Structure formats: structure tokens, C-alpha cells
């Protein structure tokens, strides 16, 4: 039940972001799907007591891989799918907590939380990059085998 709620809400939230970014109407459901899978991976790993940084990395990687497959299938820019999928992973909650602690003059906690938010954003970026690198390697191998 817990997982089901999360899957439905993340699907709607990602599709909603598709509307805000004015993604093509046909791809809204796919945006929602990408976001749902990404969030599912993240919340599943977090439930298994994995660290949020590692979970974000794996989830971002999953999102990027699915986006790349969709981009190839539907011949649309990859950004449409990956952006809507990434949004739920953005560490908004931690950044908010950090900000709140800064305002309340609790700098020690604030710096810790800010560092955590920074690490998670970095992990999302690394996840995206790894998938890009793998994609380029596959393309190169295919190109060579054609010659």
C-alpha cells in the first residue's frame, strides 16, 4: 500500500511537471512513467536502509537509461523525459531544512544538511553522466562493428 501510494503520487507529480515545462501532450504519460520508476527505485532503496546519496545515484541512473530508450523510440530530445523524472529526486526537503536552520542560527546543523543536499545533487549528476558515458560507448562499439 505504501509503495502503491508513492507510485501513483510520483506519476501524477512528474506528469504535472511535464505540463509546467510544456512537454508535448503525447509524452506527458511517458514523463509520468519515467518519474514513477525513478522514485520507485529511490524509495525502495531508502526503505532497504541504503544511504540517500547512493539511492539518488542509482535512481538518477535508472531515469537516464529509460529516458535514453524513450528518446530513441519516439525520436524526441532526451531532455523531455529526464527532466520530469529528475524533479522528485531533487533534495528540496533537505535544502529547506538547511535554510531553516541557517535562519534559526543553528549553523552546525545547517552546514551538515547543506553538505548532504550538495552530495545528493552531485549524486544525481553523476548518475546522469554515467548513463551518458555508457550510451556513448555503446554507440562507438556499434559504429565500429558497422565498419
Amino acid at each position, binding site marked *: 500500500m505504501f509503495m502503491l*501510494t*508513492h507510485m501513483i*503520487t*510520483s506519476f*501524477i*507529480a512528474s*506528469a*504535472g*511537471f511535464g*505540463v*509546467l*515545462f*510544456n*512537454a*508535448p501532450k503525447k509524452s506527458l504519460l511517458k514523463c509520468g512513467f519515467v518519474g514513477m520508476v525513478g*522514485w520507485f527505485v529511490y*524509495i525502495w532503496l531508502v526503505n532497504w536502509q541504503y544511504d540517500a546519496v547512493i539511492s539518488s545515484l542509482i535512481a538518477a541512473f535508472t531515469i537516464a537509461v529509460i529516458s535514453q530508450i524513450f528518446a530513441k523510440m519516439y*525520436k*524526441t*530530445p532526451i*531532455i*523531455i523525459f*529526464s*527532466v520530469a523524472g*529528475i*524533479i*522528485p529526486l*531533487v533534495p*528540496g*526537503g533537505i*535544502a*529547506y*531544512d538547511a*535554510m*531553516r536552520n*541557517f*535562519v*534559526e542560527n543553528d549553523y552546525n546543523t545547517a552546514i551538515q544538511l547543506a553538505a548532504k543536499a550538495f552530495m545528493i*545533487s552531485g549524486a*544525481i*549528476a553523476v548518475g*546522469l*553522466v554515467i548513463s*551518458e558515458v555508457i550510451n556513448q560507448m555503446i554507440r562507438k562499439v556499434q559504429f565500429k562493428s558497422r565498419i
Partner: protein
Amino acid sequence: MGNEFPPTIEVIEICLLAGKIMLQGGAETYRVEDTMTRIAASLGIPHSHSYVTPTGIIFSTDGTEPAKLIRISERSTDLYKVTLVNGVSRRISSGELDGKEALERLKEIESADYTFPVYQQILAASIASGCFLIMFLGSWTDFIPAMIAGGLGFVSFIHVHRVVQIKFFSEFIASLLIGLIAYFFVYTGAGTELDKIIIGSVMPLVPGLLITNAVRDLMAGHLVSGLSKGAEAFLTAFAIGAGIALVFTF
């Protein structure tokens, strides 16, 4: 494709227009450069150089034609236009469109408005806010407050942005309003967790597209664009944070 290529100056115009639409729509720098080079190559200019930053594009061809510069002053997010220009570029490469048709099509895309109606955007923002609340482990009783706060925050973002052209200021006002509304709900007893409501409702303003693009640009070697987009994302996040922080200082 016809036997003769269009004059170079026309090709430059096509490339710049395509680049401009894509950049204003929020495409990554490397995609803009790639598209411009591809269009130029399929219209008879195999060697072209482009330099794309978030605020301007410089495009030059090998030869006697002067390099051209185009200024990008207003940026928004419109992924549909990016997709359309991508489709035009594909059709130019495959020879379905010649120079004149492509230019007409691009001008049509530039002047058209494909965005969703404002009320749909507001609806999407408020529903997304509610869903984010649930995803961040909030309780269902806070669902409606988060929806209202997120929706009203987005409305104020759109309207303030129409009056004041500074994007950071409208984000600041929007997040300030979200904070006040959330505080009001908790104060009156309609909402329970202030933190969760604020986090959920602020999500539609979060610069997710900028962050992803900044990283991808940096990794692709477009250091100037990557850093400037990162700075924009940071300023946006700071504006949101400052708006929320102001609520807590009361």
C-alpha cells in the same frame, strides 16, 4: 533536396533562428550547437562554428560571410518548441525540407504559442504540490493545504513575473506567499506539519531543469554555459530559500 543550396546568408539565418528557439525553450547547449551544425551541413555548409551561451549565440561559417550574433534576452521553458525544431532539423537533414520552407516553418514555430492554458498550468502545479507532500511522507490531512499553497504560489509567480521582469524577485515573492499561506493553515488548524506543506508547495518553483542542464553542459565541455546556468539555478534556489526564511523570522 534540390541540386542547388540556398545562399549562405539564408542558411545562417535558418541556423540562428533554430538555435534561438531551442535556447529560449530550455534546450541544452550541446544540443543547440549540434542542431545548428547539422542544419548548416545539410544545407551545403560543411564547416561551421557556433558558440552558444545562455545569453547569446555566435554563428560563423568558413568563408567570406560575416559571423552573426544573436542576443537571447528572455528565456523560458517550452520543451514542445524544442521538440518541433528538432523535428524540422531532422527533416532538413533527410532532405524533406529545403531552405525556404524550413525558414517559413521556423518563423511559424517562433511566433506561435503552444503553452498549456494558464489555468491548466496552475492546476498541474497545485496537484503536483499535493503529490509531493505525500511523497515526502506528509499526512493526507495536509494534502488540500499543500495544493492551495502550491497553486497560489504559482499564480503569484506568474503574475509578479508579468509586472517585474526580474525572475528572482518573482520567485522570492512566490515562496514568501507560500510560507505565509502554509503558516496560516497551520495556525488555524487546517494543516498539521508546516515543514511538509512548505516543501511540497515550493517544488513547482524548484529549478530542476536548470540543474540538470548545467550538469550536462559542464560534462559536455561547455564550461561557460554550464557555470552560468549553475549560477542561475543557485540564485533561484537562494531566492526561494530567502522567501521561506523570511517567514520564519517573524
